[in-house]
């Protein structure tokens, strides 16, 4: 059992979840600390300086959003993954205003959490800034303004349907990651109908048309056959 893939702090008011998750994550090579409420979480972050915090939103007392807010107020850039059941609009609001790096809806499987943790840490370790709370994202010839909900290709604004915009936004905040249709449906549409993935495909077709991205030699969006899609261009924050 190799250790030190990093240190994590898990925060959730359900003891059983903490028990199972910390066991699982320790076996996966992390050093894990836990906290069952917001106040304790803030103390431990200060004392232990974890590489990443997994934070449940719905907790009595100081809830996850408040913890995150205070963290960011202290100018802490510790990456945070929120555990929550949120719809799409709330997720966007949280990302922009409070600076969470990723979300995972309950109920989830520990493997999914592990995949998210690894993805976030990979970006952090590469010295890449957190994209989740950036207002404007750039990649090759495109610029996405998340506040104005506008897309610019070669400096000219192009129109997208609202869902296509949400989809592009999500993909650009998670570059390089394999995004299954199910995950996209859940995160962008707020749905969990694994069989209505046609909806995702239709929006990808729209995005490819607008970005003039040829699926056979893609610059931006790559199809991973049988699995989903990946945003393959590098994404940065507009200065």
């Amino acid at each position, binding site marked *: 059992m190799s250790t030190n893939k990093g240190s994590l702090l898990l925060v959730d008011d359900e003891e059983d*979840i903490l028990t199972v998750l910390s066991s699982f994550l320790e*076996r996966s090579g992390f050093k894990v600390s836990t906290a069952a409420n917001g106040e304790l979480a803030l103390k431990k972050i200060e004392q232990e300086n974890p590489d990443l915090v997994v934070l449940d939103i719905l907790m009595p007392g100081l809830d996850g959003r408040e913890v995150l807010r205070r963290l960011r107020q202290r100018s802490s850039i510790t990456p945070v993954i929120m555990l929550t059941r949120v719809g799409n609009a709330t997720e966007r609001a949280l990302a922009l205003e409070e600076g969470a790096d990723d979300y995972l809806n*309950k109920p*989830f499987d520990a493997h999914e959490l592990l995949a998210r943790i690894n993805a976030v840490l990979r970006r952090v370790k590469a010295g890449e800034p957190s994209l989740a709370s950036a207002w404007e994202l750039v990649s090759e010839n495109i610029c996405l303004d998340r506040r104005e909900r506008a897309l610019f290709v070669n400096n000219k604004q192009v129109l997208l349907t609202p869902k296509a915009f949400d989809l592009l936004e999500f993909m650009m905040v998670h570059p390089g990651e394999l995004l299954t249709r199910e995950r996209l449906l859940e995160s962008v549409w707020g749905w969990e109908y694994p069989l209505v993935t046609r909806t995702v495909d239709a929006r990808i077709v729209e995005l490819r048309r607008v970005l003039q991205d040829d699926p056979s030699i893609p610059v931006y969006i790559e199809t991973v056959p049988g699995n989903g899609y990946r945003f393959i261009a590098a994404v940065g924050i507009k200065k």
Partner: protein
Amino acid sequence: MKKYSYLLIPLGIGLLFDIFLHWTGHANLVLSARFDIGHVILVLGALSSLFLFVYWLGRFNNQKKTGLEIEKNRNLAQQEHHRFLKRLNHELKNPLTTMLSGLSLLDDMLKDKPEAGDLLVLLTNNTRRLSVLTDNINQLAEFNERSFEFVPVDLNRLLKEIIAAVLELPDYQERRIEFQIQKAPWLPHSVPGDEDLLTLAFYNLLENALKYSGQGDIIEVRLRESNKSLQVEIADTGCGIPEEDLPYIFKELYRGKTAQGKQGEGLGLAISKQVIDLHQGTIEVQSHTGENSGTVFTVHLPLSL
């Protein structure tokens, strides 16, 4: 009747004046007339009619008020039902998270015990089923609270896409669905709607048709425009729905006799109905079992809201 006692006020006033004027001797002759018995009966009849009209008006208003109350109560009950579902879902997600994650952990711990593998897969699949079920129920409950932006939706294109999608499913790749669309006097117009929700509604209906019919059965999807609405019929020659189940098939989690043994939690039709209700449309079903069995779902969607 207390409410209508004010109707007697004019009569009362008139009576009082009559008595007063006679008593004070000021009952000057205004009009001298002779009424025969026929006229008297006519006047009595007219007065009776007037009273009956007033009575009827009162009852009509009452019925309207009762109708509105019933509608209000029904809406409140439905809202409370959805709130309950959300609370239930909220309570279920933490234990489900523990179970799903715990099973992953067990899987890892028992790597050297391959005989445990099958059991773990079974447990994980069933826990996932619960998870999907709670999510679907949550979706249903959230429909009530979402706000929607309706845009013109071309059902011709949408239905073609859905048919293509549903036939890509591994279980249905050998099946056929016929799509008939009205071409005269004109192609059907678009309807105001939410494209994703309508996709879901029709997808569930089509999947239902495929599930309850077999290789040799026919499935037809018919789109036509009639009288300010679009009509979509999804018909199959499958096993049909028993008569006693028909009134309940749109209820959440209801699974009739023929559904036993088939995958699914009985939410598909409930979701379809909710979506169509949201679009101010209607959905009906006709079905026969036994000889010449089959089912047809008829959906009407208004051309304007």
